């Protein structure tokens, strides 16, 4: 089981990084569209804490947390989202395509529902090569309306592949309440495919980690796919700049009460972690984010000539 302080630090890193992105976006230092996962950090941190080096993750458009929890370095992350040549994707992908293939992070994804079959393929690769690796497909509750989700769970079930599908159920399908978009409840949907579904408080990082650890162990034993439904909250809009006219302002208060980071902090204190240790963790993560942003600011811009020759593998002569 992951060290609770390490989980706390990971959630803090994601939170600090995303709040910084929000400011950078507002100031025009981050171009394009960004989708923040503020409030959902416990899911990314808890699930990824249960994974090993060899495992694979396919993510969503709201994928910063998954990438960071998978170990993507802050320097490469910020340089990418700030469109620099030193970005891990050399400034060609940006926020919606952060990826770290060395760490089995197969990419955030601009297409809702597209990551699931990619994770399925990764699970297939683990099986074919005879490793005990597993693959995780993160998805949102709105994605359940996409056909690829059904195709993926069906194939994973008939082939009993080591695929963990993790629903970050924040109640929203972009700008619409997901219960107006999707008729099936995830538990019933999962049961229809003969797959085990576990619901967990997605704002409780310990609960998420425990559920993930148990599911991943079952996957490694060859027991077939699993679905974890983590109920959580999307604190921000669908994208930065979303005025959220469709949302009840009182929801914000309810969300803050369940802040996964505040809850973990309180639990750590209650369990005897010194306040000074928590403050040190907070200061260190903040400093790491500041340093990564500073490095990205001085990095060279994305390189057009390199991009032009980066569509295909170099031709061997």
């Amino acid at each position, binding site marked *: 089981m992951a060290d609770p302080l390490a989980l706390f630090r990971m959630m803090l890193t994601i939170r600090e990084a995303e709040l910084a992105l929000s400011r950078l976006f507002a100031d025009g230092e981050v171009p394009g569209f960004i989708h923040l996962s503020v409030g959902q950090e416990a899911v990314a941190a808890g699930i990824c804490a249960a994974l090993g080096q060899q495992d694979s993750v396919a993510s969503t458009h709201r994928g910063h947390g998954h990438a960071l929890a998978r170990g993507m370095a802050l320097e490469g992350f910020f340089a990418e989202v700030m469109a620099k040549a030193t970005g891990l994707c050399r400034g060609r992908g940006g926020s919606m395509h952060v990826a770290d293939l060395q760490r089995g992070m197969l990419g955030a994804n601009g297409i809702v529902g597209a990551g699931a*079959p990619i994770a399925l*393929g990764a699970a297939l690769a683990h099986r074919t*090569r005879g490793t005990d690796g597993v693959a995780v497909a993160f998805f949102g509750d709105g994605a359940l309306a996409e056909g690829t989700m059904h195709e993926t769970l069906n194939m994973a079930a008939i082939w009993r592949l080591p695929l963990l599908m993790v629903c970050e159920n924040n109640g929203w399908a972009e700008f619409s309440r997901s219960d107006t978009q999707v008729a099936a409840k995830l538990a019933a949907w999962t049961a229809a495919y003969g797959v085990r579904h576990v619901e967990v408080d997605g704002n409780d990082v310990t609960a998420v980690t425990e559920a993930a650890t148990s599911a991943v162990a079952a996957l490694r034993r060859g027991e077939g796919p699993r679905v974890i439904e983590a109920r959580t909250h999307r604190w921000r809009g669908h994208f930065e700049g979303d005025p959220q006219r469709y949302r009840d302002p009182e929801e914000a208060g309810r969300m803050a009460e369940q802040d996964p980071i505040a809850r973990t902090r309180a639990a750590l204190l209650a369990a005897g972690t010194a306040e000074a240790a928590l403050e040190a963790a907070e200061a260190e993560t903040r400093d790491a984010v500041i340093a990564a942003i500073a490095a990205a600011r001085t990095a060279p811009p994305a390189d057009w000539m390199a991009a032009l020759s980066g*569509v295909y593998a170099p031709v061997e002569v």
Partner: protein
Amino acid sequence: MAELRMVQAVNRALTEAMAEDPAVILLGEDIGAAGGPFGATRGLLDRFGPERVRDTPISEAGLVGAAVGAALSGLKPVAEIMFMDFITLAMDALVNQAAKARFMFGGQRGVPMVLRTPHGGGLSAGPQHSQCLEAWLCHIPGLKVVCPATPADAQALLRSAIADPDPVVFVENKALYAMKGEVEDAPEAVPIGRARIARAGRDATIVAYGAAVHWANDAATTLAADGIEAEVIDLRSLQPWDESTVLESLARTHHLVIAQEAVEAFGVGAEIAARMADIGFDELDGPILRVGAPFTPVPFAKELERAYRPDAARIAAAVRRTLD
């Protein structure tokens, strides 16, 4: 040297690639026990087992997406889409995922997958089982598109496609599956992107691919009876395509006709015509003409499909027109 049907040449290339490299796996609908709807994967399940020859459900989007994920994870999947028409269901995986991964992940990794799929009509298969949709895919940076016209090229090009570090769409003409041809026991590699001069000639160049190569050869035979020597270039690869071979031929013949089974408008021929009108402008002594299908869906009735499909007569007429 063996005489093989086109579909057997495909089967041989798959067998060889799988025997050589355990990372090569197959995914597709009814490719296992059934051996594929056209028999391209016959015998492979028995030889390589169900882990490497995966019969998938009828889930084109899911199976091509899984091929992308497997390719990003170190395998070399060869996915089959039963009819090219069904590629519509897998376009996200192909266009937004496979084609873009190398570029948008900054070169961290490529997607070494092949998507095999049969196109083409002539079988009264109707509007949803006969289309030639390759031009769509040629339009997508990151994809390669190949379309062999002979069993020898089917074998060699499929080996090259499987060995390629990037996603390759391997288009097989289903009307050619039964065609026989010699395949060497240890054939030379055919690199993707190199055309073949199928017939030499000095008066006009006919560029074609897939089934149209054979119509072009027939047209050249007809024209030869009237003393017109047409050169036939079999493109073999559509993306990338062999610009220099076409330009060199045009520089000798000064007349160009491009023939394809696909709908003529906005097709592969349009791209070749536009490029040659640019870089080959000084060589041209007549208009560049295209021969392709009319702007309608592929009809079912035999007499309608006969009227719809381009053929040797139309190609010969185009050559005469540009020489006129």
